[in-house]
């Protein structure tokens, strides 16, 4: 019985961590894309003070920060897209 439980635990562990990773990457992707939009529509002075690029009273719009956030966000979503795709057997071409 103990052996069976251990086996189950070892089989479930990677699945659980994989699912966690996918959920985290999906959330990160969405948050980063929202962040990119915030960077594009808000001047540096109106950003939340904990944002990189925040400058009090600045009217500069951080287009590049937004692009960087968008790139990483898209990368996260592509990762989720692949990880949640149909499983292939290792022998399949």
């Amino acid at each position, binding site marked *: 019985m103990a052996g069976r439980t251990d086996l189950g635990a070892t089989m479930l562990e990677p699945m659980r961590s994989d699912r966690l990773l996918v959920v985290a990457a999906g959330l990160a992707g969405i948050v980063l894309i929202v962040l990119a939009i915030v960077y594009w529509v808000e001047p540096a002075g109106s950003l939340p003070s904990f944002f990189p690029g925040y400058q009090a009273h600045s009217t500069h719009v951080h287009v*590049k920060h937004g*692009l960087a956030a968008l*790139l*990483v966000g898209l*990368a996260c979503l592509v990762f989720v*897209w692949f990880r949640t*795709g149909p499983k292939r057997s290792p022998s399949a071409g």
Partner: protein
Amino acid sequence: MIVASLISYPRAIVLGLVQGVAEPFPISSLGHAVILPRVLGWNIHQNDPYFVAFLVATHLATALVLFAFFRRDWVRIIKGIGRSLRDRGIDPNDSDATLGWLLVIGTIPAGILGLLLEDKLRSVFASASSAAAFLIANGLLLLGAEQLRRRAPQTEADDDVRIARQVGWAQAFIVGAAQALALIPGFSRAGATMGGSLLVGLSNRDAARFAFLLATPIIGAAALLKLPDLLGSEGNGVRGPALAASFCAAATSYLAVRFLMRFFETRTLVPFALYCLGAGVGTSIYLAVS
């Protein structure tokens, strides 16, 4: 009428010709763009807004030439990426898809570092003397890569198949991130990626091919992002010379890439390393005594 003489046509042509050669050659185009005007006594500084706008045009021309040179590869690579997205997985036998995602993974760190650090690094390392020092460092980097390189496996496989088999995801990320070194005038983007690719185990020819494919989206995107500078008020007075320089850069880029793809069939990075060491030391001495 002051703006009309910001960069004369002869100077623009010289800068365009040099940019076209220095971008694909692993010798730092940005370093040359900083050093050359200083050595020739031209009143042009790397961070002058009009000069940045001018460089946008020559970089765009280089990116277009690189894209045109490898256009058939890009079509295959983009189709491969499309197939993998449709199938929601990368078939290990689909070298086009694998190479495509290796390029995406390599481009992301370079793109992010470029977006976030470019302005800061440019302003900190804008002097010709620092560019000369980093040119020496670039030469040492190229020599080091040749010394530490792994022996490339001899296979009959197609170029892209070899690259897709030899380069791993983490390695593509690191080689791509190494491109960010090129934000410092004196370090070469092509040198960093070719050197990194040699360490991963690619041959000189495959390393050059991977470096050019990796450089195309970054150079193109960086130029497109700054295109408004050239088309806006900062481009006043330099658009004509920039256009002339672009044609020159396009012509020399094409010849340089063609030359390098043949050169690296049998040769190594050592001649470029020696050039960087010589040019860096020579410039440093010149700047010290002048």
